[in-house]
């Protein structure tokens, strides 16, 4: 009987981790559909950003209430994972509470896991109330209708149930320990579950063992399911926040990258010795570089990583001046659309034996509208607000480049402004020769 349990556990574990590994492979493949960018610079700054922003949660506490609640859930999940390690070893070896010989330390650990689990339950309940009862603005924006809303609640339910299973498991275990049932080592302290165990008073050892085993199994299966839910959910941030903060922008927020392909052409144009009739260089067959971005493959892999990292908290959108004044633009939606389109492209590739088959769709136009792109003031409020260093602004700017340089589709007023700069070196129709007139005016 014991050995069957162990074998079964190994099978479940391998299936759970294996399926997750497969999803990670798809995730990597999809992210790599993006253009290459050099992120090998500023390593010390990058490490510091990751430690501070992802590990240290510094940006979460800008909003103190959700920040504090989030830290509880975050710390809870990291620390309670030590318990998962024990469960896995017990499951594979057929042991029970294998870390029990740690004695007092073990009691302390189990005790603190319980307290954390309890705090996580409270935090999760408050999160649920914020989303569903108080209906905080940023959680009920148009892009949150349907699946994103369900996804958000689903994560809370799963976390609630996992914590409850953990505590129930401990409660029944505690009861069994007190009944001196064989195999149930006297170990651990149960500051929270001791309040659940009175419900088990008077139950037979067999029933209790059944409850203990059931909750033990459901708990670990639940965790494996949750691990595999990540890829289909906004919850990937618990893993991707780390690489994402590492690869985040290290230059001043106002510095937008200069397009190298344009620099080369501009240099050629400005070079008086360049022969305008010269035959193109050796790479005649190379397709001319596309300026800007209209689909996910025009974006960089860091931007695509950004899209998978987004957990749809909406802090960006709630700080966005355009969104605050009722415009269609929502930086969060830009990230969600990017991810949705990337997933669509990934599935297309899977369905067509590793080759992308043109589906006549693209990110700009089919997901993101021009109206959203033109409503941005480039103020960087969204970038500043993101607790995990996502840069929605860079995607917006890349799309403007595509609209202007590939499609000549700027709003008329902007075309006039650009015409003025081209003709007289100012965004307004004033003569460059009049630039000093102010010195003559009263």
């Amino acid at each position: 009987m014991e050995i069957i349990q162990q074998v079964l556990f190994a099978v479940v574990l391998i299936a759970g981790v294996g399926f997750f590994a497969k999803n990670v492979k798809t995730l990597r493949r999809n992210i790599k559909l993006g253009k290459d960018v050099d992120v090998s610079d500023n390593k010390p700054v990058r490490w510091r950003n990751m430690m501070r922003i992802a590990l240290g949660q510094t940006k979460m506490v800008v909003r103190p209430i959700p920040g504090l609640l989030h830290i509880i859930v975050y710390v809870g999940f990291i620390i309670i994972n030590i318990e998962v390690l024990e469960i896995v070893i017990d499951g594979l070896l057929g042991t029970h509470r294998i870390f029990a010989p740690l004695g007092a330390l073990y009691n302390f650990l189990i005790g603190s896991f319980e307290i954390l689990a309890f705090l996580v339950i409270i935090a999760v309940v408050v999160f649920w109330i914020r989303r569903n009862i108080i209906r905080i603005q940023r959680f009920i924006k148009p892009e949150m209708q349907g699946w994103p809303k369900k996804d958000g609640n689903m994560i809370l339910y799963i976390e609630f149930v996992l914590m409850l299973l953990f505590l129930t498991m401990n409660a029944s275990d505690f009861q069994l320990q007190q009944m001196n049932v064989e195999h149930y080592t006297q170990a651990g302290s149960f500051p929270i579950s001791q309040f659940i165990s009175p419900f088990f008073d008077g139950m037979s050892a067999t029933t209790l063992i059944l409850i203990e085993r059931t909750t033990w199994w459901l708990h670990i299966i639940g965790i494996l399911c949750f691990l595999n839910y990540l890829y289909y959910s906004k919850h990937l941030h618990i893993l991707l926040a780390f690489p994402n903060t590492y690869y985040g922008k290290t230059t001043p927020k106002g510095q937008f990258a200069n397009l190298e392909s344009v620099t080369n052409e501009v240099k050629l144009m400005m070079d008086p010795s360049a022969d305008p009739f010269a035959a193109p260089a050796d790479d005649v067959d190379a397709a001319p570089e596309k300026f800007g971005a209209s689909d996910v493959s025009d974006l960089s892999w860091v931007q695509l990583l950004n899209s998978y990292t987004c957990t749809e908290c909406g802090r960006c959108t709630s700080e966005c001046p355009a969104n605050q004044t009722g415009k269609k633009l929502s930086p969060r939606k830009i990230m969600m659309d990017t991810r949705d389109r990337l997933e669509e492209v990934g599935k297309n590739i899977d369905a067509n034996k590793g080759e992308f088959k043109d589906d006549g769709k693209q990110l700009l136009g089919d997901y993101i509208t021009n109206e959203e792109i033109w409503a941005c003031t480039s103020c960087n409020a969204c970038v500043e607000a993101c607790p995990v260093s996502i840069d929605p602004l860079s995607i917006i700017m890349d799309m403007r480049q595509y609209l202007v340089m590939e499609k000549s589709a700027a709003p008329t007023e902007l075309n006039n402004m650009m015409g003025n700069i081209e003709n007289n070196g100012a965004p307004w129709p004033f003569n460059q020769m009049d630039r000093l007139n102010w010195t003559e005016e009263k």
Partner: protein
Amino acid sequence: MENGLKVPTMAELFAAGKQPEVLFWVGCAGSFDDRAKKITKAFVKILNKADVSFAVLGTEESCTGDPAKRSGNEFLFQMQAVTNIEVLNGYGIKKVVTACPHCFNTIKNEYPGLGGTYEVVHHTQFLRDLVSEGRITLEGGKYKGKRITYHDPCYLGRANNVYEAPRELIRKLDAELVEMKSCKKRGLCCGAGGAQMFKEPEKGDKDVNVERTEQAIETKPEIIAAACPFCNTMMTDGVKSKEKEASIGVMDIAELIASAEDL
């Protein structure tokens, strides 16, 4: 000059074999916009008073390309940048000061990659240094105890982390600096950035500058201080739309200082 300002151009100084301490990059708004020209003149008054050796490019100056780049026209931006860099490098410019956060950001951050590396400071930083070096003295007087709220320009604040220089100057005027509910890192945009200045806003419930002006009015200020010609326009329009122009003034930091000094 008609208005008593001394505004040497680089061409003149160069011909005389002189090199100024700093180049004043006036910018398009500062050169052409009626409201912004007052800021330019106020800043020059202070420069003259502090005896700063500076020069302007005058007719050799051209748009930095910021609105073109933020509109997505990278070609036009780089053409402008390369042309300007050629002029700046030709004169051997080392240090640039400007009263426009957009010019400031572009020259400081985006020109180096195209061959133009200079020490670039915003006029609020430059003025703060003049004060701390004792080259100008500020004694409250006119602004003592006045409620002044400061609007952070995005391209100075979030974009380049300059939050303190303008605030220090306001405090130096003995004014009562009151902060809006979103300020500094979380400051709300005036609505002009990203080339919005040059187009009608998209459909929505409200204009961004009105939203920001409402936040400013909540602080019950006598003056809304700005540090960007575009923010200045947006906030002035906002105050007008709220019919508060009689009780609330919108002024650039340079104007506050120039008028405190009664220059």
